[in-house]
């Protein structure tokens, strides 16, 4: 059927309408996205848990120094602690919370609608959320890496392991953030899926089955880290199953690009409520 009704008053076309615009003012838009992201992410519980996990390797380092650990075994100590506490736990968890936390919560309660029904491009929204997560995760992880390295190395980095993991961790922050942001826009239970990926896939399967080493963000970031440690440490311990440096860099770049593209694509047609 068809129906139309006469206008009640004059204003009916976009000509007389407001100053909202679809382009420009990128700075103000970025600041607004950041404000909404921070409001959702910086909450008491994640901060306390994050602080504890960040401090854990530093505490181990202090115990190492305090119980007579010396520079001879320093490289092995750092490789073990960095691998177990930073790369396997702190890094992916920090990236999960900072990259997926805000978007996941906004999708859960439907308030993402207030971000999507604006003239801000979905690309800017995705990029700001990714850069935010990468920077915050990097800062947290660098605190743990540098704190642990300096405490255990008595103020210096004689083995070069600290520098290598600092580089690898920043790359890892970028890769994990892109992947978890994509999860948050594609899946309803992104935090749970992200956690399972970290614990089950990376924690056990990708270490046991060398063939799938390329499908693990951790293996890729360790492949980059390996390039910066001394030859004596390469190919063993955490580096036993990692891909080569060139392959790792290519994978890291490819994963970030694909994950961000998938995020933008999904944000363009994100369902805001479940169909009834």
């Amino acid at each position, binding site marked *: *059927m*068809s*129906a*139309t*009704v*006469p*206008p*009640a*008053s*004059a*204003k*009916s*076309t*976009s000509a*007389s*309408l*407001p*100053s*909202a*615009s*679809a*382009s*420009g*003012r990128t700075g*103000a*838009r970025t*600041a*607004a*996205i950041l*404000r*909404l992201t921070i*409001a*959702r992410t910086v*909450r008491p519980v994640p901060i306390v848990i994050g602080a504890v996990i960040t401090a854990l390797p530093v505490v181990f380092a202090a115990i190492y120094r305090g119980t007579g650990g010396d520079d001879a075994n320093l490289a092995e100590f750092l490789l073990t602690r960095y691998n177990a506490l930073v790369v396997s736990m702190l890094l992916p968890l920090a990236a999960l919370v900072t990259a997926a936390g805000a978007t996941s919560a*906004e999708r859960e*309660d*439907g*308030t993402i*609608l*207030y*971000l*999507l*029904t*604006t*003239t*801000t*491009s*979905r690309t800017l929204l995705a990029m700001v959320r990714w850069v935010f997560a990468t920077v915050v995760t990097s800062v947290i992880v660098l605190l743990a890496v540098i704190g642990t390295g300096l405490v255990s190395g008595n103020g210096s980095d004689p083995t070069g392991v600290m520098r290598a993991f600092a580089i690898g961790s920043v790359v890892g922050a970028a890769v994990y953030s892109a992947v978890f942001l994509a999860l948050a826009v594609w899946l309803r239970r992104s935090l749970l899926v992200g956690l399972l990926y970290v614990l089950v896939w990376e924690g056990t399967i990708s270490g046991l089955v060398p063939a799938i080493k390329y499908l693990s963000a951790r293996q890729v970031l360790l492949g980059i880290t390996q390039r910066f440690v001394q030859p004596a440490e390469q190919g063993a311990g955490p580096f036993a199953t990692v891909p080569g440096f060139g392959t790792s860099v290519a994978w890291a770049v490819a994963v970030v690009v694909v994950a961000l593209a998938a995020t933008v694509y999904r944000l*363009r*047609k994100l*369902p*805001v*409520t479940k*169909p*009834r």
Partner: protein
Amino acid sequence: MSAPGIPVPFAGAAGSKAPLVFTNASRWFGDVVAVNDISCTVESGITGLLGPNGAGKTTLLQMAAGLLPVSGGSVRVFGADPFGDVATYANVALVPEAEAVPGMLTPRQFVTARAAMLGLAQPADAAQRALARVQLEDSQDRTLGGFSKGMKQRAKLAAALVHEPGLVLLDEPFNGLDPRQRAQMMRLLEAQAESGTAVVFSSHILEEVEGIATRVLVVVAGRLAASGDHRELRRLMTDRPHTVHVRSSDDRLLAGALVGNPSVLGVSLDENRLTLRVTDHAALARALPAAARSHSVSLYEVRPADESLEHVFAYLVQR
């Protein structure tokens, strides 16, 4: 399908710059048809989208807001396809039914962030004006988490109106509001419409729609069942066959006396009551006591049977 009510010229989508035009718009989710071949044009003023729960009102509003693509037909907002184009939101706002707002922010932060993301030149000033319009200035620095439902509803409205869009879509804006808040919301929408905005709101309550809508679209089971002026719609809804149950001292005698009355379409006798089908309540209201008096029958109970909104909707769909 054909519309009951006033005959209206069809405004095609082509070249139309009307705030909102649906042309044979359909939307299905798998096997479920949520919106079925709806065509209508919304101009400025207040339009009520009336229908029972699950009728497809939310789907229609989401398609209008560019959040859902149509499965068939088209939607045009100020002449453009709203889906997947962020430029749409320069002139359109949707106030969702969901109560949720970012609870950790103050209304000022929330509305200012929206203003900035809409590319407004002075986001803080625009937010201030929008909060003043919904009378939240006094609470603008408290966090939204502690707000009552009515205050959250107003904060949502301020966030939607901050860029003074030409089309505002509201999904069940009166849900859960107390009578005072409801009246306040109605005044806000009326003020908005007076400033030239096209306001479309959905509701499943006839009285809400009658209260402020200058025209009404009735949606039932995904179809446009009726449309037009609210008085026209009220007439449609009242000038239909009604069923009235009567209990009296002698149902059979009363039935005999009434069956010849022109307003009575039919009578049936059950064990303990008389059921009348009538065209006109007012005529029956005169005929029934007269018949009872002249036959010395005592009336115990006179009760209309089908006044629920669902019956009204069902009747409109059958037409």
